[in-house]
């Protein structure tokens, strides 16, 4: 049987009339391709993001401790993370390819480098905003330097650090869609496929909508985490 009218979508060609005519939203495509396309893409997207934010957070936190203790090192670290942040994502992926190849490593390096600026800045600003008197009181009541940091400075800086984590997570989810240009992983992957196939609308709308929803859900979860960890501040 041949359907003559409308653009025939490769790989989806034998589908319903909605699919073959590239309708705005074909629920049967979504249910039919949830397990082979959408669900794996979603899981990969979460993985890409979690790894990038995890490594980025560890790196930025370590750098912020260095910049906090040795003030001289703060400007160069800040300028370097700002420099990385300014490079357009698609360009950074391509610049890394000759070094790390067409691989998940390339994608993760780029994603991590975009998280550094906000995580570093927020952590160091949060630590700096701790009132000097608080630190003095803690030291005066016999806290060691480490105890002062862990029990006074870090908890007080936590709201700023978590605010940075929210921004970094949401931005990473967003930039990770572009990663599909390098490796066919994440929610960007079905979008690229759909763009190549005569702009198959359903796939673009659903995968795009899932990326937006994922970002909003992640943001909401981090707000809950923020409330749980810092019950004294309502921001």
């Amino acid at each position, binding site marked *: 049987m041949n359907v003559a009218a409308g653009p025939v979508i490769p790989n989806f060609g034998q589908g319903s009339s909605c699919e073959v005519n590239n309708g705005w939203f074909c629920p049967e495509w979504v249910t039919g391709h949830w397990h082979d396309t959408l669900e794996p893409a979603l899981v990969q997207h979460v993985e890409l993001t979690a790894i990038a934010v995890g490594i980025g957070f560890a790196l930025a936190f370590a750098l912020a401790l260095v910049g906090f203790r040795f003030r001289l090192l703060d400007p160069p670290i800040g300028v370097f993370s700002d420099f990385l942040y300014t490079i357009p*994502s698609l*360009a950074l992926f*391509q610049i890394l390819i000759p070094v790390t190849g067409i691989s998940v490593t390339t994608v993760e390096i780029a994603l991590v480098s975009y998280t550094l600026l906000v995580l570093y800045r927020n952590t160091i600003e949060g630590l700096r905003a701790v009132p000097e008197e608080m630190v003095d009181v803690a030291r005066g009541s016999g806290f060691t330097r480490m105890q002062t940091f862990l029990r006074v400075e870090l908890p007080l800086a936590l709201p700023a650090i978590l605010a940075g984590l929210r921004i970094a997570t949401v931005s990473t989810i*967003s930039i990770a*869609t*572009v990663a599909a*240009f390098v490796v066919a992983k994440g929610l960007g992957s079905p*979008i690229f496929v759909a763009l190549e196939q005569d702009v198959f609308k359903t796939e673009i709308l659903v995968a795009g909508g899932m990326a937006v929803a994922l*970002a*909003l859900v992640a943001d909401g979860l981090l707000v809950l985490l923020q409330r749980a960890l810092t019950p004294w501040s309502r921001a």
Partner: protein
Amino acid sequence: MNTFVDSFRFMGDHGHLLLVKSWQTAELSGAALGISLLLALPLGLWLGHRHRGLFLAASVSNVGRALPSLVLIAFGLTLFGIGFWNNTVALVVLAIPPVLTNAYFAMEAVDRDAVDAARGMGMTELQVLVRVELPLGLPLVFAGIRIAAIFVIATATIAAIAGGGGLGDIIVNRATYGDAGVFAASLCVSALAFASALLLALIRKGVSPRHGSLL
């Protein structure tokens, strides 16, 4: 490191092509940034001045960050088809949140005493905004414009997949331009992003030399 050397050879051999494509990217980015400034800057400044619309400013910023650039480009193509509007609208939508939110919070954060003093001197609301709040909040306002500019240039590159032209055309077309061409174009688009950040810093310094070190 062969690609690296080859890319500089590519720049020498195809300097004109890179220049034309860079100009296209700059044109698309500039137009989108200009439109978003016209829309978001007055609104953000005014709302911040009136201390109203906190919810709007905060939600625009949260939702804006959650909109992936690729998704916006793809949505634009779905809605408008290939033409002038698909990518321009996507880029404008992307650029509005940082501009609006930063303008809002810049005005909102200005010391109330300074504003009261200005009112006491008989300044009109517009004068208070332009002569007192704007100069004081300028670093934050420019930080927002800068983020928007970087977002827009990055996304204008991706827009090549939706007929946007520019340097992205080379970057997404490895088959034609080879590794060296893709690498060279990536360096060009990065240079463009740095140039725009630098330009904005210079404009900020020019507009308000005394507040150059506030941020």
